[in-house]
């Protein structure tokens, strides 16, 4: 589904990704761990097409399409979802308005009919309920005044509504309390654990991986994947830290 080959990327002229290779097949969940500043968020933003993140080498194929040639909104319509490490606050735009426009833009882009207000609200309500989020919060401006955990929960509600093929979730677990972590973990499984979908989970902690069991765990360090393994690698890292990898 996603094939990253020898990817090089710069942020503001500074090389961050230095030859990253990774393949994700449908039905798989991959976790990426790695020290602060390793380039994990840079990888997520680069795949999302964020301005200022310049690809200087390599290729990315997403379901047979050249991902790097697509605009950010086209990547979304093609089925890519980016869960932000720091979700953005948008005063004056309600979650409902934002998500309906997002979903219908994607549907139009794919040649599908847009959802009516009523149809959309039904979908939104179901997803908000599943994440334990009050509908009233969905009527408020996007992330404005939301706590750190509420913002992350909101990312998952959005993922549920948009129903992507590939989700790249950047530290969706950070800032969540113990109960929210379980709700979010179950949400990821419910929405994404199907044979035709895939997830790339960026995380620092084993906890989320107790709920969302990864098929593969990779260590990203200094802009490259330096080690890959099964879910036991996460446990090993938790025990030994990243220092041992350098050896």
């Amino acid at each position: 589904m996603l094939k990253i080959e020898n990817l090089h990327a710069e942020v503001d002229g500074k090389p961050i990704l230095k030859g990253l290779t990774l393949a994700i097949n449908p039905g798989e969940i991959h976790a990426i761990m790695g020290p602060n500043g390793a380039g994990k968020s840079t990888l997520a933003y680069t795949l999302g097409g964020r301005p200022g993140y310049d690809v200087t080498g390599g290729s990315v194929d997403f379901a047979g399409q050249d991902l790097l040639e697509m605009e950010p909104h086209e990547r979304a319509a093609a089925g890519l979802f980016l869960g932000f490490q720091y979700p953005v606050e948008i005063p004056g735009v309600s979650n409902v308005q934002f998500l309906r426009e997002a979903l219908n833009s994607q549907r139009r882009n794919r040649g599908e009919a847009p959802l009516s207000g009523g149809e959309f609200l039904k979908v939104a309500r179901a997803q908000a309920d599943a994440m334990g989020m009050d509908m009233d919060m969905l009527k408020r401006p996007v992330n404005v005044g939301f706590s750190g955990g509420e913002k992350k929960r909101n990312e998952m509600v959005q993922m549920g509504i948009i129903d992507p093929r590939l989700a790249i979730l950047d530290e969706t677990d950070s800032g969540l309390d113990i109960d929210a972590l379980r709700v979010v973990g179950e949400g990821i499984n419910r929405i994404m654990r199907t044979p035709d979908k895939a997830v790339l989970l960026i995380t620092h902690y084993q906890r989320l991986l107790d709920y969302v069991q990864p098929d593969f765990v990779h260590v990203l360090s200094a802009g490259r994947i330096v080690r890959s393994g099964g879910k036991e690698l996460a446990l090993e890292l938790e025990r030994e830290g990243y220092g041992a990898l350098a050896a």
Partner: protein
Amino acid sequence: MNLALPSVRQEAWRWSDLSGLEAIADAPRGAVEALDPSAFFLDLGGPRLVFIDGVFDAASSDPQGVTIGPVDAATDHPLGRAATGTGWTLSLGTDHATSGPVEIVHVATGGANHLPGRIALAADAQASIVETFLGIGWTNRLTHIDLAPAARLMRSVRLLQREGFVSLRDEAEIGQAASLVTIVLGAGEAGSRIDAALNLSGESAFAEMGGTLLCRGDQRQEAAVVLRHAAENGASRQTWRAVAADRATASLAARVEVARGAQKTDGEQSLRGLLLKRTATVNLKPELEIFADDVKCAHGATVGELDRNALFYLQSRGIPPAQAEALLTRAFVADALDRIGEEKVREAFVKDADAWLDGEGVSGGSAT
């Protein structure tokens, strides 16, 4: 046409460009396609008036209590003083109200047209007026407003002219506990100057003037408001939002004067500009002149661009860039238009602003 136009050397006109005005004024009339003014009525159940090039069009009007004739209004304002002679007057007796909001549609077909208007509300009277400006040419208006104690007036003005220039001059006396709210939307392609002198002469009077100027191409729009608190306990609000795209210029000058005796004045000004392109210009000039010591005056003035993080966030969820910009710009102007009291009017104005944001251009008539 011979008019002594103000020069940019005068402080109150330094952001104006009136150099094209004479040429616009000298252009012939009738240079606009058939435009159906009734399509711009909102069916609010009140009096309806149509003026074509400043001349009352009885056939398409239902003026009810609004009268047409010489208007008791004089000014030394350099543009406003050209608008004398026959015009419209709304005069309401004590405790009276119109059957519904007064709707006035001004259609210009080229050249210059000048028209005075007068609104005089006796004690406790209430009125709402919605004015729409369409067509091309120079449209010049002087509006005199007199509010007796506890009278209330809501004015909503939308500028949708396709070309040319619209100049509005408002002069108001606001009596004790009376209230005047004027909200302006500039969503056409013409230049504009919205100019007002509002005097809160009675105790506990309330005045609000604000709105949204949307500018693109080489368009220039500006508002210049002087709001004077002359008595105690008054309150005033000015919420303006200016959006400039391309090479356009939007300017806001809002001044609050608090006279010596006007204690307990509560004034608030919020001027915000949004640059959609680096080549555009927004000028903001908030001014306070306070001669009383016990007053509360808050003001804020900021110019910025759309938040890049927010734009990427929206796009990452599938919203195309132009739509993402429109969504954020709509949010930016929303609080200025929210001040319009009647829901139907507010919705119509928001729709006009949306049409501008969606790049559909103006509905105010195309030139032939």
